[in-house]
């Protein structure tokens, strides 16, 4: 009886777990999921559009320009309208560049040939020589070294010191002009020789506006003077690549920014969260730091200009007029050669005959002499990568400090207590039992912040960036040791974001400038990605060292 009852009841109910159509909860859940789903896809869509566009527009540019896109500084693009059926020749490398840059041009009659070139090899013994500056440059180019100028005379004549015997080779014509204009140089072991240069000769099947970077344009005109006599040419500045310099500059700025920001940020957050007495003052300081994150980047740029470019302290013996305060330090001694000139000038000014003055000055040459004083001068570092790096660092500090405090707080209290209970000092406990476990988190957040500021234009516009520079930062520094580092850090650099800005907005626009933006943006994205990948790798390594 009771059995029957229950079974009938069961029949009535049917599936007790059936979807309840009346209840709206299920529907609402579907709605909620839809909102979450669409938000995620919204982000992915935007990311896809951005990365897709950058790739689609950037990759063809890199393909077209190849390695010539990576020259040291922005180059001018030449467009030369060359007629059909005129034979030209070019160095094979340049020809490859030309073909890649003009995929639609029809090159015919391509053949290899060799051209003889007369050269002269000779030896320059060591010694001091007087010659025009231009010839010094020629000699430097073939010898592959830099000479020190002992003296500068009038009309661009200088005296250089050749420290070691040089064996060099020059083109015969260049050698002749060298010997005629620098007769003082005692050239020995003169030998004529003939080298064979490989050339590609080619013609165009139909008239075509050939695009090429300025360097190739100069060489093609030099090698084929008749062909290019009446060729119409257009030039487009900044349109033939040249992002290596900006790339290197940005990398250096990032490195400086990272060193400064990580050190200061980690130190400050350790102090804030571990040492300082917590209270309303601390909260006010935290708020101030957080607010720093809201300051517009152009304001950071201007503050960087004021603080680092015009006001920061610097140890120098050549004080700028604009310095705010100068604190005298130790006396400075001049280098012998400089001193020699100074002393000679003084003697001449006092009325000694010039020859006598030189003799006296030379006699005292080896002795260094007190000629001034080193100062701690608050004159700023000038526009340079150090100032730029510091400005960027100040900009990421709020991110780093906040992230760092978060990471420190996330380290279990037990580690700290265990370490202290074993007799560690406060700093030992922090260094060995807190920081290592917070470091992966700190690094992740910091790298995110740093890649963000690496792309900023405004903060470096006034503090570090140059639109164009012919040398890479490590080229052309004369001093060595600490002086080298000092000179290295006090130069302005090109920077990618600024380069992109220049190409996009500060030069006359043409159909040739847009591809430069696209290519530069892609290069920048690749740089940032590799930087992020590096940080991920570093974090994984650090994690694996901790034995969780």
């Amino acid at each position, binding site marked *: 009886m009771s059995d029957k009852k229950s079974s009938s009841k069961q029949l009535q109910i049917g599936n007790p777990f059936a979807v309840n159509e009346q209840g709206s909860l299920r529907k609402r859940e579907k709605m909620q999921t839809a909102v979450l789903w669409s938000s995620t896809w919204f982000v992915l869509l935007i990311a896809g559009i951005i990365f897709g566009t950058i790739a689609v527009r950037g990759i063809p540019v890199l393909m077209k320009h190849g390695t010539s896109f990576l020259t040291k500084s922005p180059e001018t693009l030449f467009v030369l309208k060359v007629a059909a059926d005129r034979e030209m020749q070019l160095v094979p490398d340049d020809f490859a560049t030309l073909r890649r840059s003009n995929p639609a041009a029809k090159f015919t009659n391509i053949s290899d040939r060799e051209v003889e070139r007369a050269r002269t090899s000779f030896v320059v013994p060591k010694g001091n020589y007087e010659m025009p500056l231009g010839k010094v440059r020629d000699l430097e180019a073939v010898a592959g070294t830099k000479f020190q100028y002992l003296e500068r005379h009038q009309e661009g004549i200088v005296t250089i010191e050749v420290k070691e015997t040089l064996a060099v080779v020059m083109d015969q014509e260049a050698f002749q002009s060298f010997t005629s204009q620098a007769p003082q140089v005692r050239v020995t072991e003169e030998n004529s020789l003939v080298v064979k240069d490989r050339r590609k000769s080619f013609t165009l099947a139909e008239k075509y506006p050939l695009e090429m970077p300025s360097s190739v344009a100069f060489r093609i005109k030099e090698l084929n003077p008749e062909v290019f006599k009446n060729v119409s040419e257009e030039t487009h500045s900044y349109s033939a690549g040249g992002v290596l310099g900006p790339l290197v500059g940005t990398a250096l700025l990032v490195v400086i920014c990272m060193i400064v920001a990580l050190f200061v940020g980690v130190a400050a957050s350790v102090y804030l969260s571990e040492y300082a007495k917590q209270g309303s003052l601390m909260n006010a300081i935290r708020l101030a730091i957080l607010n720093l994150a809201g300051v517009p980047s152009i304001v950071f740029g201007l503050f960087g200009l004021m603080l680092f470019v015009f006001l920061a302290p610097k140890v120098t013996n050549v004080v700028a007029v604009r310095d705010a305060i100068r604190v005298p330090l130790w006396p400075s001694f001049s280098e012998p050669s400089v001193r020699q000139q100074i002393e000679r000038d003084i003697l001449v000014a006092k009325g000694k005959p010039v020859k006598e003055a030189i003799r006296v000055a030379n006699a005292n040459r080896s002795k260094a002499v007190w000629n001034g004083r080193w100062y701690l001068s608050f004159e700023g570092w000038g526009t340079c990568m150090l100032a730029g790096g510091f400005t960027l660092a100040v900009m990421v500090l709020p991110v780093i400090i906040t992230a760092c405090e978060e990471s420190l707080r996330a380290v279990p209290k037990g*580690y700290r207590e*265990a370490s*202290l*209970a*074993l*007799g560690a000092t406060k700093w030992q406990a922090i260094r060995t039992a807190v920081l290592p*476990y917070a470091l992966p988190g700190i690094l992740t957040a910091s790298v995110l912040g740093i890649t963000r500021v690496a792309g900023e234009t405004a903060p470096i516009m006034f503090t570090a960036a140059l639109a164009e520079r012919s040398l890479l930062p490590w080229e052309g520094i004369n001093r060595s040791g600490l002086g080298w580092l000092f000179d290295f850090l006090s130069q302005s650099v090109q920077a990618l974001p600024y380069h992109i800005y220049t190409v996009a907005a500060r030069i006359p626009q043409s159909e040739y400038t847009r591809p430069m933006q696209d290519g530069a943006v892609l290069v920048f994205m690749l740089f940032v990605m590799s930087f992020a990948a590096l940080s991920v790798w570093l974090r994984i390594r650090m994690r694996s060292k901790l*034995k969780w």
Partner: protein
Amino acid sequence: MVIEMNQETATLGDMPTESTVGTIKGKTMIECKNVSFSYDMGKTNTLDNITLDIPEKQVTALIGPSGCGKSTFLRCFNRMNDLIDTARITNGTIRIMGQDIHASDVDPIELRKRVGMVFQKYNPFPKSIFENVSYGPRIQGIKDKKKLKEIVEQSLVGAALWDEVKDRLNSSAFGLSGGQQQRLCIARAIAVQPEVILMDEPCSALDPIATAKVEELILELRKNYTIVIVTHSMQQASRISDNTAFFYLGKLIEYDATATLFSTPQQKQTEDYISGRFG
């Protein structure tokens, strides 16, 4: 097994005016006189006027309902409470080996080297077993690998863990079982050769078998170290301790040899608490 009691809402009747302190045999190691302690610059006292002597090379258990201040009292001995800005001893003195530990010429770092601590939740560092045990000696500046190895072995043997881990000293401490991790923490504490070891509910996160092992270890350590242990288990207190102190609401109610305290408690509250008639 542990008696489960609703300690949070428990009341044990009126406070006695005087705490009962029985005769404790043995040379005094830690001497507390009228100690009062406050977490909020003296506004309210978490510990109130506690006087007791802890003898050398014996196990002294601190028992009492939750929140009565056992951990606080324990942490006074190695000045771990210094880490809290507003916390301080408002009255009285604590002497360890005859020295007032709050004297101006006492370095808390040196104090903590002599007074080790084992925590309720086992907390090895996320490093290898070897690095965990050698952590203490290393921060004290011992760099010699051979010496460190020696210390590590001695400490692990001392903590009855050597046989279980000698083949995997370089693997992560997190790969050990809970009981092994707690014994590792004990090994880490004895590696700095303390005189006193403070243990705050060292077995509360362990199962009965691991608990038995740690208790065995405590009885072994008793030969060389003075041990103060906080526990919620009456059975554990009666099994391993020589003396027991009963705390209630920040006051010491009764302190005596364990056998005496458990068989003939003098105070009504002590009797109610240990017999589980509570609230």
